[in-house]
């Protein structure tokens, strides 16, 4: 079992297999290596463009590290197997794209409700439906947030480059483990297939965290309690004689089903929300460029954050006071910071490869007197520096 105590052996293997230094690789490969360095030793998936290289890399590398690659019969089975393996102590991951992500939504909700750590990489591609299957997009912003049914919190991170996807995947695992929750990596088909320089670190440079296990029998009896006040129950793993009961139905702290008492449902679902709300320090992350004196703000995420930065740099050369805000954790959205920044600017541009999704989150935190404008492109081709620069000039 690779959850604790195997670190020296795993570090030896990682060092031997992946010498630290610069490599030239795809975003999809970087995600896979990020997962391996974060301690992921179980992958269950189903092939789908443009995510398949993640599965291929995991199938090739996991056995070398003593880990398990399972190709399941569909996406529903993939996430189901991950949940099962997570309850035996594995750090688990799958990767998919829009249509597969849709199929995984029910069990993603199951993972939220049963507080099962897992990492789900959605390599966003152009939809709806089969759409442009090989082309990247940013259309799953709200599928990640609201794809599964019922009131539920969700955490989603979104990398902006090949190197970043290594580190954001590591971060996704650490958040999932710390908060005993599923974490979505909102990746995209463009960075997934782009090849760039990436520095593979020494394993000791990578901060790796593990889920909280029960400290004693008492804690093990309450797999859905809150003994430490942080909203995160210790996870009594299967196979340790705890007789843990796990169900997606509304359950009491001891895990047993109770769907008839309103207070039990209220207490459980609110605690699962509070667990996320009160642990912002674990997951909140954003980047800011030139926001100190900005009169115009660009808010962008994922692959579009790159041409956005290019456009901001060029606009600055032209003397335009423009800044850039990039949420790296996109759900929950760091709206409070956007609210603060919005008070100092007169216009906000939101470039993204969809017809306006992140902009709806921004809108919630911005007053009407600020000009809010989307810069939207669909069709599978990324936004360019020039296209965004033109929009900046237009509001300057």
């Amino acid at each position, binding site marked *: 079992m690779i959850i604790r105590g195997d670190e020296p052996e795993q570090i030896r293997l990682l060092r031997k297999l992946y010498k630290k230094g610069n490599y030239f690789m795809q975003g999809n490969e970087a995600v896979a290596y990020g997962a391996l360095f974060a301690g992921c030793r179980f992958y269950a998936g189903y092939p789908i463009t443009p995510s398949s290289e993640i599965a291929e890399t995991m199938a090739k590398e996991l056995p070398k590290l003593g880990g398990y690659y399972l190709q*399941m019969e569909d996406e529903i089975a993939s996430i189901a197997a991950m949940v099962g*393996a997570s*309850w035996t102590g594995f750090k688990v991951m799958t990767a998919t794209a829009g249509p597969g992500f849709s199929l995984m939504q029910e*069990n993603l909700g199951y993972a939220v409700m049963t507080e099962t750590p897992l990492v789900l990489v959605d390599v966003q591609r152009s939809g709806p439906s089969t759409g442009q299957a090989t082309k990247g997009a940013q259309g799953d912003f709200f599928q990640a947030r609201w794809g599964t049914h019922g009131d539920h919190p969700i955490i989603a991170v979104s990398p902006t480059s090949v190197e970043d996807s290594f580190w954001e995947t590591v971060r996704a695992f650490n958040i999932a483990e710390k908060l005993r929750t599923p974490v979505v990596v909102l990746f995209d088909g463009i960075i997934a297939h782009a090849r760039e320089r990436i520095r593979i670190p020494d394993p000791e440079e990578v901060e790796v965290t593990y889920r909280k296990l029960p400290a004693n029998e008492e804690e093990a009896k309450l797999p859905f309690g809150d003994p430490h006040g942080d909203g995160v129950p210790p996870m009594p793993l299967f196979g340790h004689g705890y007789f843990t*009961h796990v*169900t997606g139905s509304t359950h009491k702290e001891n895990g*047993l*089903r109770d769907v008839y008492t309103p207070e039990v449902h209220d207490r459980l679902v609110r605690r699962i929300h509070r667990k996320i709300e009160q642990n912002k320090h674990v997951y909140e992350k954003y980047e800011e460029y030139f926001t100190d004196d900005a009169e115009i703000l660009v808010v962008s995420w994922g692959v579009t954050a790159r041409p956005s930065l290019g456009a901001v740099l060029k606009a600055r050369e032209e003397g335009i006071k423009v800044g850039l805000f990039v949420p790296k954790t996109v759900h929950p959205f760091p709206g409070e910071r956007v609210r603060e920044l919005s008070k100092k600017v007169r216009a906000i541009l939101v470039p993204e490869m969809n017809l306006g999704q992140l902009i709806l989150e921004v809108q919630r935190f911005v007053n009407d007197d600020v000009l809010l404008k989307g810069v939207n492109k669909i069709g599978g081709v990324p936004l360019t520096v020039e296209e965004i620069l033109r929009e900046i000039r237009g509001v300057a």
Partner: protein
Amino acid sequence: MAKEIYSTYPMVKYLRKEALPTALCPGCGGGTVLNAFANAVDQLKIDPRDLVVVSGIGCSAWIASPYFLADTLHTTHGRAIAFATGVKVGLPDKKVVVISGDGDLASIGGNHLIHAARRNIDITVILVNNFIYGMTGGQVAPTTPFGARTTTSPYRNIEHPLQISETVAAAGASYVARWTTAHVYQLIESIKKALTVKGFSLVEVISQCPVQFGRRNRMKEPAEMLRWFLKDSVPISKARNMSPEELEGKFVIGELVNRERPEFTEELNKLIDEVQEHFGLREE
């Protein structure tokens, strides 16, 4: 009265007492299956700490979860075997058992059932086939007999039932047996074998649902349904010499398959050893 039964019933040591009494209807075959499973565990002297029981959604998913005192994973509709696959890979030395119904495992979850059999992963599936969606109110299932009445086939069922055991046997399972709740001792023996063989094992249990199925098909009393099972059951040895027409509507009982095939988690671990050996990664 319930309390008295639980204090004298020898298998109660395997049950979560705080979850009792069960939610099963009077006359349901689910109790028989739970009893047979507990007896099989008892006779094999399996420590419940070495068991993980996984179930899906529906009446039959409730048979062992939450009532059986082991690690229990009560999952989404149809996906129990897929969840169990992850559990088994993580805990290859434990017995992983799926107990659920026909609608759950053979309809919405049919794909996982045949692929787990194909992989021959060492999971024991006890599939309780009562021909009906009981929990949702008695709707037609892919196992409902041709011509039977249900709430969504109120005039008659025009579809043919899936032959679950035959399908799973064809898909590659190591062990497949079918019994009814009227064959309790044979059922216990088959569950014991299923728990012992290496590889995917299925025990299909034809079970009575007097409330949702029997009531609408002239078998209001559980005993009437059990008599029907006894009357229409054909041992597999006899069935082999019968034509498909003669077998129409009969329950073929007995062991369909008992064979050795490479098992998935063992192969998976063997593969890891080979790869680590090949790349010179074994501990120095």
